[in-house]
């Protein structure tokens, strides 16, 4: 049925190679001779029970016989053409791009194992490096605040004002004033309360608490400046509350911790009034850096900070003081002093 002998195929080669010996043995057997390559058993008189070596040799012969008998060199060309046609159809339909399944992987097991082990080793190495890096980073980050608290703390306030720019000062101050209310409004209300108490006390005699009075005098920069200072404070808080809050809060904020300095969403709206406030805020923050290092954000530090800030803004306040002084106010401390 159309079978032909594959002349060039390896099966033909193999068939001929193994078949020759098989045929020779079979021919010898057919001729009635004993097996040609059994000289040992033949020479020993052919024992009735086949010994071990004879069985082994027979196994090899059996294999040769089976190969020669079952793997015939004939190839049905029609079947081959059908297989090739199926291959062509599969290639055309894209079936050859299908994904490999587990049962399609017949690569040698050693290579698969080494490949997997190599991949596993690499991934384990990578994971260990990553985890180790995270651990080292965690050690480093937890070490730097505990070991050098002051540099880590002072580093935080100094770096945000630098990108903060002119508008960064006030906005950072505002954000921090909302973030850390206890220190900041206490100082401002302290000053205003002292001023109010000073005005009342000035009219009815000195009933003001000595400590508060001393503090107010210190904040004003002298006993004679207290009225001007209080007038400026009142005017600033009345007329332009946002403006007055700028420098004071800036000093207090940076005196606190200055963490929120970098947050600049409000920089746009404060940009119009930031001309003078910027200078004050800058000086205030500069003073507050030293203040934070010393005080740690309590009310005393906030007071110091506000004092420094007010000193820094001495130019503008001096002009304001001049205005208030022309208003006839300075007569009051003199008059109130009996």
């Amino acid at each position, binding site marked *: 049925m159309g079978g032909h002998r594959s002349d060039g195929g390896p099966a033909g080669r*193999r068939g001929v190679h*193994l078949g020759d010996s098989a045929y020779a043995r079979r021919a010898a057997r057919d001729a009635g001779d004993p097996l040609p390559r059994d000289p040992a058993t033949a020479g020993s008189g052919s024992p009735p029970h086949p010994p071990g070596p004879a069985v082994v040799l027979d196994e090899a012969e059996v294999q040769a016989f089976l190969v020669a*008998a079952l793997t015939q060199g004939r190839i049905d060309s029609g079947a081959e053409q059908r297989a090739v046609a199926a291959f062509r159809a599969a290639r055309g339909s894209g079936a050859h791009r299908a994904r490999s399944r587990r049962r399609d992987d017949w690569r040698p097991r050693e290579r698969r194992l080494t490949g997997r082990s190599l991949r596993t080793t690499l991934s384990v190495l990578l994971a260990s490096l990553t985890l180790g890096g995270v651990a080292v980073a965690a050690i480093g980050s937890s070490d730097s605040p505990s070991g050098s608290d002051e540099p880590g703390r002072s580093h935080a306030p100094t770096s945000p004002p630098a990108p903060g720019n002119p508008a960064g000062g006030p906005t950072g101050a505002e954000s921090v004033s909302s973030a850390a209310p206890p220190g900041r409004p206490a100082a401002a209300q302290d000053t205003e309360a002292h001023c109010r108490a000073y005005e009342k006390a000035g009219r009815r005699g000195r009933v003001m608490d000595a400590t508060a009075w001393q503090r107010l005098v210190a904040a004003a920069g002298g006993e004679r400046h207290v009225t001007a200072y209080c007038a400026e404070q009142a005017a600033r808080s009345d007329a332009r509350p946002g403006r007055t809050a700028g420098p004071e809060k800036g000093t207090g904020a940076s005196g606190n911790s200055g963490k929120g300095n970098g947050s600049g969403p409000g920089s746009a709206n404060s940009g119009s009034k930031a001309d003078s406030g910027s200078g004050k805020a800058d000086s205030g923050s500069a003073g507050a850096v030293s203040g934070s290092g010393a005080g740690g954000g309590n009310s005393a530090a906030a007071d110091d900070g506000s004092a420094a800030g007010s000193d820094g803004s001495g130019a503008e306040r001096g002009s304001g003081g001049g205005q208030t002084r022309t208003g006839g106010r300075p007569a009051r401390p003199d008059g109130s002093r009996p």
Partner: protein
Amino acid sequence: MGQGAEPRRGQAYDGELGEAVARAQQGDEAAFAAAYRFVQPGLLGYLRGLVGDDAEDVASDAWLEIARDLGRFRGDGAGFRGWTATIARHRALDHLRRQRVRPRSSALEQDVLDLPGPQSTHDQALEALSTERALELVRGLPRDQAEAVLLRVVVGLDGPAAARVLGKRQGAVRTAAHRGLKRLARQLRAESVTDETPRTLGEST
């Protein structure tokens, strides 16, 4: 003891077969035909031992699947023989199941004897006779032994590959192949010495 059963067949051309398969996977049609010619004889011998004269049909079915799934295959020449043997075995088992459902008069030996009819040369007739005799012997073995012998010897798979095709442990397949070969050897030896010493017939089981 089973050292003689260690397969060495097929590995001489496994390199060429692997290259042919690789080129066929790239779409080379001639390479696929070459791989077919490399593999088909052993595959057909294995299928003859399983399904007898239906081996050609089963092999055709198997090759349709092989041609379709060739892109999925991963491995070298030896792996390709194992992969194709697995596919052929599944097709053969399907065939046997169908045959069990509606049995047919399977006069195996007659069919095999009829097979070399058209080729009337003496050499091919002798070859067919030995084929018939070999099939008779192999199919007289228990199923697991017959399959192990065929895969190891005729297809030329090594132990792990044969075990994978059969879905069994490697030791079990090695034992089955060894027992099958020993039994075949006894029978062939009994046959070969029957002419002069009929007394050995008694021990051939």
